[in-house]
């Protein structure tokens, strides 16, 4: 069970309440895809990622960046039960999307850097320590679920969300090969 001090709680809440998710989310994800290009492997269906300019102007990447921050927001609002909050999302990313857990650390580092750029001198050592503890907890819980929960645990709504997303991205040839798509 993760222990949060009062000051850590207030720092995390204050950081996220003053963040513009529409700005920071896309910036963090773009930075991750540019600085660590191998992370692009998970975004094959997201269109043109050919160079930094293309990544920065890609609307699908921007939208996913915003989604990631809203996902983190759920943990901010449930800091005492992040494990349960992320149970389904964690299984989705590990069992279905097969994201290497170390890539979450890379994205977390990029998010830290974007927030540091936004806050400037207000991003003190204590603020950085609290933020990095928060993202480290999120990352550990992702890893904990990696391969330990069965896909059957996924709720119907999460599965539907996943497949409606993949539906839009995968081409018809691949769809025919995947038996799951018979249901959607």
């Amino acid at each position: 069970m993760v222990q949060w001090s009062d000051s850590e709680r207030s720092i995390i809440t204050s950081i996220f309440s003053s963040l513009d998710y529409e700005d920071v989310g896309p910036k963090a994800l773009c930075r991750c895809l540019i600085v660590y290009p191998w992370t692009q492997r998970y975004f094959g269906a997201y269109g043109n990622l050919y160079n930094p300019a293309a990544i920065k102007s890609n609307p699908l990447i921007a939208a996913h960046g915003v989604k990631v921050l809203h996902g983190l927001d759920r943990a901010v609002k449930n800091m005492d039960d992040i494990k349960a909050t992320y149970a389904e999302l964690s299984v989705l990313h590990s069992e279905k999307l097969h994201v290497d857990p170390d890539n979450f650390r890379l994205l977390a580092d990029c998010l830290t850097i974007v927030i540091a750029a936004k806050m400037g001198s207000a991003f003190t050592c204590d603020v950085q320590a609290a933020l990095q503890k928060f993202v480290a907890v999120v990352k550990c819980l992702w890893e904990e679920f990696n391969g330990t929960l069965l896909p059957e645990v996924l709720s119907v709504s999460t599965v539907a969300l996943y497949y409606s997303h993949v539906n839009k991205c995968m081409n018809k040839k691949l769809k025919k090969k995947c038996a799951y798509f018979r249901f959607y």
Partner: protein
Amino acid sequence: MQQQLQTAKMTSLTAKDKDRVRTFWKLAGPVSDDIGRDALARLVAVYPQTKGYFSHWSDVSPSSPQVARHGQTIMKAVNDAVAQIDDLKGGLLPLSELHAYTLRVDPSNFKLLAHCLMVVLAAMFPDEFTPEIHMAMDKFMAAVSLALSEKYR
């Protein structure tokens, strides 16, 4: 030709990366003391396990003057590394021997300090520290870390 091949094998920094590092360092170099103090303070604050390497100091908190002074020392070395970017292995040889035989710092910690350095650069230069510059600096620090680890075994 032989020397060029050897140099190419030593580091993965492209000519563009080196250019970016040199250009960005024209901004960061003059304030490298402040950068160093802040980076090391953040290292001990965010990654408390690194404090173990400084247990001979009376004060290992982020606000400690000893931490500040040592941060400056580290940044002087990074400054020198920028100047020797074409031959990091050769240029950092004495430091590599120091870290390998005397200090014996686990090389995984180089990555942590490099990350803290990136955070400081982002906070100090939010507009100039673009993703492209970030990548070049990240690669540079990885090359520096590799050169520092050269003598470990």
